[in-house]
């Protein structure tokens, strides 16, 4: 069952100052099944964030069509983990998460459970400026999961973290996702990270971005723990699609 259908004919940024007009996306089409975890991989600056912003409804200046999951029993349509955490600095961790929740529902216990699961139990009443970057990212992750969205968008959420921290957060993402299944679109420029997480990888071409390849990951998720497995898959992908992946 299709949860998300993307059909973008064209997304163009107008010329600003001396920078000329810039065609970011062109003839970009793909679909995502309900409950599927898809990683979008592409070179830096190929328009991945642009794509997520269009899906999230933050950018309407494009031609084409985005079909979101049909509304169902009060679940919010979209949760978004931005590249930077985007927490309200004047609200505590707990308040930041509760504010994202639909109004009036008594979610307090669920939020506290989620905070405990993400290792944030001790900082529930702390203001975000006191948190480390990694902790801030965790709060952003918890916020997006807390609203139990039909579609979860993640924009390089673990970039610029040290590898052990990023790894823990990836595991955490999979754990929560398995407990609370939802359709996930995860954007990254790191092929290794994509192989660790995805059901399927969608490769984007250099700009103007379109789908260069759609690659299901055949290895079951619990068998991806070892570096050798990930490397094998990575080499296979590079061999087959090396041309469009030279930058990765």
């Amino acid at each position, binding site marked *: 069952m299709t949860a998300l259908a993307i059909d973008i004919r064209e997304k163009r940024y107008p010329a600003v100052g001396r920078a000329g007009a810039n065609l970011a996306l062109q003839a970009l089409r793909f679909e995502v099944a309900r409950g599927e975890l898809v990683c979008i991989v592409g070179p830096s600056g190929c328009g991945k964030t642009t794509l997520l*912003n269009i899906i*999230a*409804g*933050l950018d309407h200046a494009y031609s084409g069509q985005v079909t979101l999951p049909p509304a169902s029993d009060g679940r*919010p349509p*979209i*949760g*978004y983990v*931005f590249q*930077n955490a*985007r927490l*309200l*600095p*004047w*609200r505590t961790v707990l308040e930041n998460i509760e*504010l*994202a929740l*639909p*109004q009036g529902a008594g979610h307090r216990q669920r939020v506290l459970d989620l905070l405990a699961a993400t290792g944030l139990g001790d900082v529930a009443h702390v*203001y975000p*400026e*006191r948190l480390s970057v990694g902790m801030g990212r965790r709060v952003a992750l918890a*916020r997006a999961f807390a*609203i139990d969205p039909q579609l979860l968008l993640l924009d390089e959420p673990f970039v610029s973290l040290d590898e052990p921290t990023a790894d823990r957060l990836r595991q955490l993402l999979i754990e929560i996702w398995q407990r609370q299944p939802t359709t996930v679109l995860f954007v990254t420029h790191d092929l290794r990270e994509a192989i660790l997480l995805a059901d399927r990888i969608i490769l984007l071409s250099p700009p103007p971005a379109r789908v260069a390849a759609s690659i299901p990951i055949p290895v079951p998720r619990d068998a991806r723990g070892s570096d050798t497995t990930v490397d094998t898959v990575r080499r296979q992908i590079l061999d087959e699609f090396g041309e469009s992946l030279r930058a990765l």
Partner: protein
Amino acid sequence: MNPPRLPSSVWPYIASIAALLVLWEIAASLVHSRVLPTPMAVLLVLMRDTADGTLPYHLVITLARVAVSFFLALLLGSAIGIVMGRSILLDRLGDSWLIVFLNLPALVTIVLCYVWFGLTEVAAILAVTINKIPNVVVTVREGARALSRDLLEMAQVFQFGRYKTLRHVVLPALGPFIIAAARSGLAIVWKIVLVVELLGRSSGVGFQINLFFQLFDVASILAYTIAFVAVIQLLELGVLQPLERRANRWRR
């Protein structure tokens, strides 16, 4: 959390006030005239007029006028500032009006309000409010222009809606700007209120000062001034500064 205020930081303050009083005393005894009374003479007037209730009566009336026009200006100015800071079109449309009002002398506004609306309380409050609004608009507009687009987008994706966005995203971000406008506002508003009272009211500190001016009663003028400045200082220290600390408590 704050350590108790150290005496060492208070002493220079007290010393400078004492020095001022001493200079005043010396000057007054040298001049030895009714137009420059000694500090003690002023204190006696202050106590006499406080005891018979006239000073508190006029003080409270003036403070009420200050309060009403202050809050009106803050509320309307903030609303206009937010709108102008967020909409390029409205900013362009409103900018020339803003410049006109910024450069309009307070005295002109006051006189025109009295001519058009009569020597009434409403005209008085209106004149002060109109004088103050442009300053609030300019300050709050800067804050609204600097609002984080990242956070506004976040609020949109997570479907905060208008009220939640205003209360939890916009207003906290504007807090420092609104408080800055409030502090400079308090200083301007009470001075304008005195002029308004002098020109067209029959009560308040400004009215009293006009009366004493005609009687050449400098001791009373100084007594009322000191009482009023003290009250405004107390508001600044006791209300605005704690409010500012509270609005900034999330900062590292």
